[in-house]
């Protein structure tokens, strides 16, 4: 048992901190808004700079230009990036599609895409969810008919982050309607500029354009863009899904918000002249939340530690999704209530003050316990896979 980072890890974090101090705009609070043009420019610039350091693909094998960084270093990277709310950490290409292509891609596919991803020169998006799938991904209905040497796709994907900015989409489509639901699915790569692709923005409850619905009307994809075998797409996609929940993001966001709330309480006076933080009940609640953040953090670290030993985590990954999203929710709930009326200001011009954005932050966090497998689905996973409880 050891609960500290080693020297290499600490040195890496310092280097990353310096990099971010230098590259992020002065007074950066974040988060970035990729739907604005400035936001998108910043994202692309940061993505390239991160790529130059080799950080985007640090976990990749050396043969693909990676650094074979340990899962713990990789986690530290994500932890610090999220703590700083820094843009540019493209996960679709580097953490999801890249490793998938390494296992299932043809030589041609690897040649064509991996180096672009590594250089931060291409944006991918993920086409999995559909309007009627929700947590039941295998019920997807978007159909790709194989006609000669190309697929013709009709249907729709939804909740597609970055679709309005992406160059390419990796997607799951149904290629055999008669097969059992997990069979009959294929994994395709789609050029987003293909005729028949239409991207419709979805505005979220915080008022931001964070998702899209993507419609496909007779969209043609060449057969060479099939990854893995025909009708084996479920296997291709599931190979990675487990490890890529990005739960450390929620821990970092919780930590950052917690600090902002503490600082607000330490600098805001009540009418009687006392600071908010002079109130023991405020301190007590902050201390409880801090302990809960630590719990979520260590489960997340444990996942990286298990990966570093070559043990694929499954239950632990679900546990940290739950713990991390719950604590981030609790921190923001506390903040909104503590700040009172000033905390209900919802005005982009007041973004620099915590009071002007904490409500929006809370609204964003609504998606935390829902996306990437609702927390209820995570509990099912723990119960079935981890605890081996009976299905009936």
């Amino acid at each position, binding site marked *: 048992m050891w609960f500290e980072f080693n020297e290499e890890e600490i040195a890496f974090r310092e280097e990353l901190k310096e990099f971010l101090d230098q590259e992020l705009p002065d007074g950066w609070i974040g988060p970035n808004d990729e739907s604005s043009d400035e936001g998108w420019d910043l994202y692309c610039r940061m993505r390239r700079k991160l790529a130059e350091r080799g950080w985007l693909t640090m976990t990749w094998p050396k043969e693909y230009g990676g650094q074979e960084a340990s899962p713990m270093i990789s986690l530290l990277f994500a932890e610090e990036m999220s703590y700083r709310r820094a843009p540019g950490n493209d996960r679709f290409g580097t953490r999801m599609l890249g490793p998938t292509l390494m296992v299932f891609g043809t030589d041609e596919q690897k040649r064509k895409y991996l180096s672009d991803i590594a250089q931060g020169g291409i944006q991918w998006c993920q086409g999995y*969810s559909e309007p*009627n799938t*929700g*947590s*039941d991904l295998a*019920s997807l209905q978007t159909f790709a008919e194989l006609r000669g040497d190309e697929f013709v796709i009709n249907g729709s994907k*939804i*909740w597609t982050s970055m679709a309005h900015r992406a160059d390419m989409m990796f997607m799951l489509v149904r290629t055999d309607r008669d097969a059992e639901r997990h069979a009959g699915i294929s994994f395709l790569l789609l050029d987003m500029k293909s005729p028949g692709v239409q991207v419709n923005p*979805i*505005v*979220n*409850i915080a*008022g931001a354009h964070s*998702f899209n619905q993507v419609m496909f009307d007779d969209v043609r994809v060449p057969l060479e863009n099939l990854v893995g075998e025909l009708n084996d797409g479920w296997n291709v996609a599931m190979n990675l899904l487990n490890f890529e929940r990005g739960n450390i993001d929620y821990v970092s966001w919780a930590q950052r918000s917690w600090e902002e709330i503490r600082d607000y309480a330490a600098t*805001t*006076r*009540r*009418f*009687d002249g006392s600071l908010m933080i002079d109130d023991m*009940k405020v301190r007590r609640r902050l201390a409880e939340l801090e302990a809960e953040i630590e719990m979520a953090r260590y489960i997340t670290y444990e996942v990286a530690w298990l990966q570093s030993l070559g043990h694929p985590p499954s239950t632990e990954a679900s546990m940290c999704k739950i713990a991390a999203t719950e604590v981030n*929710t609790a921190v923001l*709930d506390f903040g*909104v*209530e503590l*700040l*009172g*009326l*000033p*905390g*209900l*200001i*919802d*005005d982009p011009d*007041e973004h620099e003050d915590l009071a002007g954005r904490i*409500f929006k932050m*809370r*609204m964003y966090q*609504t*998606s935390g*316990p*829902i*996306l990437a497998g*609702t*927390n*209820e689905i995570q*509990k099912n996973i723990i119960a079935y896979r981890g605890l081996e409880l009976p299905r009936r």
Partner: protein
Amino acid sequence: MDFGLNETQELIRSSAAEYLSDRSPSDFVRAMATDERGYTDDFWREIGELGWLGLIVSEEHGGSGMDMSDMAVLLAEWGAALAPGPLVESAVVSASAIGNFGSDSQKREWLPTIATGEMVVVPSLVGMDGSTDPGAMGVRASETSNGWVLSGTSRFVPYGNSADLVLMPAETDAGVTVFAVPVKSAEGTVNVNRVKMASGAPACDIELNEVVVPAAAVLGEAGGGADVVGQMMLYGAAARATQMVGAGSAVTDRTIEYVKDRRQFGRPIGAFQVIQHYMADMATKVKSAQHLVNRAAWALSADIDSASASRAVSQAKWTANTLMHDIVWKAHQSHGAIGFTWEHDLHLYTRRVLSWRADFGDSDSHIEILGRTL
């Protein structure tokens, strides 16, 4: 004990439900949330014509002379429909404060026009620090030979940009005093700055610079403002709590409908036991809160001692704050991604329920009021 509605109340309930579903649909609620004033004159005139703005105004002053139990029936429907406009502020809080503390001429002048909707009167109850302690007000008043001179800032005044009169507590040498300030036509400088709020309802910071009002603008006694503020907080808390529970009840009904329809893994998600228990929790919380908010409204109507009434109101507001918060988040969790979209109506409820928690005393302040009386 009687947990039912009487005939009048049943009539209020059914006509409010019918009228508001027709006149205040989602489109209207959404439009008003980005509207500068947050409601329309047409809508307000109609509400006045329906008699709802004069429900608790005495018949002598143009109202129906009903009590807070009757008003609670309307408020629950008002909350369920997320209807916009200063019903709580003008027709409950200000009307009851003027009815109780106003002079005969103040009542004659203000109550009939509140009841018709011609005049909107709102309270200013938020101090400079965002709290609602009468000692925390940001306005000072001094008595001169010309009348009272007021300077300072009132924060987060609801519908402050529409109000004809703001009932504004101010520090004076005699103690806290409540003034009815005609912000649109005041002698002196008045700046009204609308703040963009999560609920979509207008809240305004109102700066007064040497605003002069006559002695007749004092509501209640000079130096007796704490009592007036106390009553405004009490009626406001009871009314807002009832409105919140109405909204939570609507959220619960809509969520139950949603989980019956939405299918996942080959069945409606409402067939999953965990979702069923979420729904049972939500329904139990609505029921629990309904009793406490109705009891609070009743306590403000019946002949019971004021300490008991105050306790009933604080229990109601704390309960509405706590349980309705749980309800909207369980509703989001049950809706999944669709509830995270702007397009879906759920967040209209979420924004208001969360915002209303802070009005007329937050959870902390009410539980401490109760704690101190143990």
